[in-house]
């Protein structure tokens, strides 16, 4: 199976590719929207500034939306999770995909920003396919300054001065604020779980 990893110029994808391969996935890095054709799943990774997501213009948005409509799972990582929301205070003019309600906000308080390091995941009570076999309070590796609000589809919450969505899950749409490719065994388990969703969706 081939998972399309969208390269839109927001950071290096070496680690993400390596981690997906380690759990047995067939990944191809795509930088043109035609790459979505025939993809078994779409992964939107990315680090850095929210403005970078403007590279994912209308043709990408249409392509991804219609893929979701065909039952293709979507997985956003870090900036990719934030892009699932309506937008971000980091780049107010850049629209998000709007699959999740609300806008991303800058982390502020008596803490250091960016939020860098390992923090706990408080899992929601409802069952999650993404977190199958991962206990609540497991640690994951984060590095970000902006965060997504806690919404109805939030499946994991993390607190850094304020609580934010560290993972969302609704149907075949998934997103994580942390880096599963850098989160040790927990991260690899999560990627394995996503692969199972992809296999089940086919």
């Amino acid at each position, binding site marked *: 199976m081939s998972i399309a990893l969208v390269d839109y110029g*927001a950071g290096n994808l070496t680690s993400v590719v390596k981690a997906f391969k380690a759990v047995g996935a067939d990944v191809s890095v795509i930088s043109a929207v035609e790459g979505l054709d025939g993809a078994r799943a779409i992964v939107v990774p990315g680090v*850095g500034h929210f403005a970078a997501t403007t590279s994912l213009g209308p043709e990408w948005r249409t392509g991804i939306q219609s893929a979701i409509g065909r039952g293709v799972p979507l997985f956003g990582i870090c900036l990719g999770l934030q892009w699932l929301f309506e937008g971000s205070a980091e780049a107010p003019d850049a629209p998000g995909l709007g699959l999740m309600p609300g806008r991303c906000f800058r982390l502020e308080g008596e803490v250091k920003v960016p*939020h*860098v390091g*390992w923090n706990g995941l408080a899992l929601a009570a409802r069952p999650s396919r993404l977190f199958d076999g991962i206990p609540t309070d497991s640690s994951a590796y984060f590095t970000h300054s902006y965060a997504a609000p806690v919404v109805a589809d939030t499946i994991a919450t993390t607190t850094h001065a304020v609580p934010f969505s560290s993972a969302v899950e609704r149907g075949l749409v998934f997103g994580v604020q942390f880096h599963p490719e850098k*989160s040790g*065994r927990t991260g690899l388990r999560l990627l394995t779980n996503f692969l199972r969703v992809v296999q089940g969706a086919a």
Partner: protein
Amino acid sequence: MLAKRLIACLDVRDGSVVKGVNFQGLRNAGDPAELAARYNEEGIDELTVLDVTATLEGRRALLDTIRRVSQQLFIPLCVGGGIRSMDDARAVIDAGADKVSLNSAALAQPALITALARTYGSQAVIVAIDAKRAHGTFEVFGRSGTTKDAREAVAWACEAADRGAGEILLTSIDRDGTRSGFDCELTAAVSQAVQIPVIASGGAGTPDHFVDVFSEGRADAALAASIFHFSEHAVTDLKQFLSARGIPMRLDW
């Protein structure tokens, strides 16, 4: 709650891990990939590979070593040593590094910090500062501690953060390799001055030294080499020791 990080440093020369005292007298401590795998099993939070002689000898960090170290590692990996240009950074990032650490190059051309942050994001750019106490202040040294810079450590850390650095790796030259404890005063001064995380380095000798640098020194992470190299389970034992003393640690791995 955000955990304090323990970072194992592999000082690499010619493909082997070495360890010096006050940046001098290097001795062999093993194969980097084997050590990396062991630390990962023991629960280390992050790894740093420093090509300790790269700047002096004009070599880039050993790309082959980075590839071997990163292959089976799913925790953050930082690489430093001899990174002087965008091309140098690209080479180590393509080889598997998540972050690059700039020291002499950042002093010589601070614009490189910003250029790298724009391309890879601030999270990928660490500015390493080697500092030494003198005349009631903390002087900055470049080129593996051999060349005194005109800048002062706290001010330089603030400038580096403003220019786009995502973290500061702060090494006390006075304490490096001495096992006499971190320079908590230096660490706290920098940590309180900048918003970005500060990694304390130089002087780790006992578990209590880590308690000190995380509390008194206000460090966000602590980096050490020899304290981890020469005994099995050192990382696990240290994490449990620190957790029992109220320092937030990642204990699941």
